């Protein structure tokens, strides 16, 4: 990005159009097309993103479109767009709600691998209304999502990839991109996101293996089949690789079905274990009595 505005904690940023003043608390994100700061203004804490004029304009459009999706936005609420001037140079920026929480890959570090399945369900909850509004998320990387509301929902914090159906996806990350896996086009449609969400889920547990497999969904299938955490939802994941789902809802339904099956299987395994344990105790006691008897 040309002409980056580098702000330091404590700096004041004054909007040219609104006159609003934002005080920088700290930097919270940096990417190819912008820098995001945590700031304080009259409305309280907010996130401020500097980017070039065209990105600011198109991202604010994506944010307002997301808000139309339903009452609580699956992304950050858009507050306002503005420009600031420094040494004769104009820096466009926009202000959005600050969503606090861990990113997907940070969240799962402290949990068991099985949590990846829960995250996939939450991701599908996120995608469903977005798809209903006629757009895809596009860039499905774990850094773009935050587990919000004390671990109840997943919300997007970067909306640069949101693309209307029928167009070519605006932004993507190779590892989660359907075309890079040679599994379909880069056309914006629900199955594009469902493919990405699936790879994301597997990569949350087996990042290195997935990176090595890039381009070959056959290998991806092997990873799933031999994964203790994901094995039982394998049928759903494999169907998603093959673009067999056309809605997040139908994928979620089958996922939940698989998940409940898994629990019943576990229970039955537990029963066999306790059954054999009883036998072990019985056999041990018998052996002890026998030894005592022989010693006499």
């Amino acid at each position, binding site marked *: 990005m040309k002409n980056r505005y580098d702000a330091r904690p404590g700096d004041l940023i004054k909007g040219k159009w609104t006159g609003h003043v934002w005080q920088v608390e700290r930097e919270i994100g940096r990417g190819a097309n912008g820098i995001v700061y945590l700031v304080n203004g009259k409305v309280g804490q907010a996130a401020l993103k500097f980017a070039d004029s065209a990105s600011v*304009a198109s991202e604010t459009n994506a944010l307002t479109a997301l808000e139309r999706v339903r009452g609580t936005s699956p992304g950050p609420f858009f507050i306002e767009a503005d420009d600031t001037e420094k040494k004769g140079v104009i820096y466009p920026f926009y202000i959005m709600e600050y969503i606090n929480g861990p990113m997907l890959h940070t969240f799962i570090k402290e949990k068991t691998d099985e949590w990846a399945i829960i995250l996939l369900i939450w991701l599908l909850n996120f995608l469903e209304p977005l798809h209903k509004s006629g757009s895809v998320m596009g860039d499905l990387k774990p850094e773009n999502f935050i587990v919000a509301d004390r671990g109840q929902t997943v919300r997007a914090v970067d909306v640069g990839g949101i693309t209307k159906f029928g*167009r070519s996806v605006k932004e993507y990350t190779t590892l989660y991109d359907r075309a*890079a896996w040679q599994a379909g086009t880069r056309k914006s449609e629900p199955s594009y996101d469902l493919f990405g969400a699936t790879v994301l889920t597997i990569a949350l547990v087996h990042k290195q293996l997935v990176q090595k497999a890039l381009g070959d969904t056959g290998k991806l299938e092997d990873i799933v089949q031999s994964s203790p955490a994901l094995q039982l939802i394998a049928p759903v994941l494999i169907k998603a690789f093959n673009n067999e789902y056309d809605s997040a809802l139908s994928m979620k339904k089958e996922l939940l079905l698989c998940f409940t099956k898994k629990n019943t299987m576990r229970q039955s395994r537990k029963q066999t274990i306790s059954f054999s344990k009883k036998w072990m105790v019985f056999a041990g006691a018998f052996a002890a009595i026998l030894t005592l008897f022989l010693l006499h």
Partner: protein
Amino acid sequence: MNMGTIKQLLLLTDGCSNTGEDPAMIAAFARRRGITVNVIGIVEDSESDSGLGEIEAIAKAGGGESRIVQAASLSETVVNVTRQAMTGTIYNIINEELRGILNKETNVELLPPATRSEIAEKVEDISEEAALELLVLTDMSASMKMKLPAVKEALYDLSMTMQSRIGPSSFSLWTFPGKYSAAEERIGWTTHANKLAESFPQLLSGGITPTGPAIRQALSSFLEMDEYDEKSI
């Protein structure tokens, strides 16, 4: 607004030209002819920055985008540069229209944010639906050897995005140095984006890097269609 056809020349190289006229001058000529010149410099980890200034200069003169990247991130860069240059071209046209209407030095960036958002939506529509002519010009000099697989992959990746566009697109692939001239046409204008990667040559051409003459020659491919007289360059 009729946007006509967006014309782009994408130059992939790894360093400085070493023979022939100044590539930036040729790029400026292309720009006047309505062709945007984008340049991507492919470097290795340890490589020095020599020749990278030229990359920026060519893109600046050609009204396009420039990036300097490692081979590993070439794919996403090629797609992003092509996309950004397309919106850049549309913004330039809008700016000219604005100047025509308001009759003073102005551009979209000076308008209030809400108006800019409305324009951005239109620009996105146009860039998705407009016709695109994209000529890829690849440096095949000896130092590019290790980078060619990455170039091929990037072209495959680019074709995936282009095939998903709504508007019609045509593509052409040129390499330089050519056997008998500065540059050689490898694939003539085609609407099949996948041909770029499929027929990408794996053979290197030689030591010299005649970037300027190569751009000039590749341009003829655009201009032939406009009944262009090559002598006037």
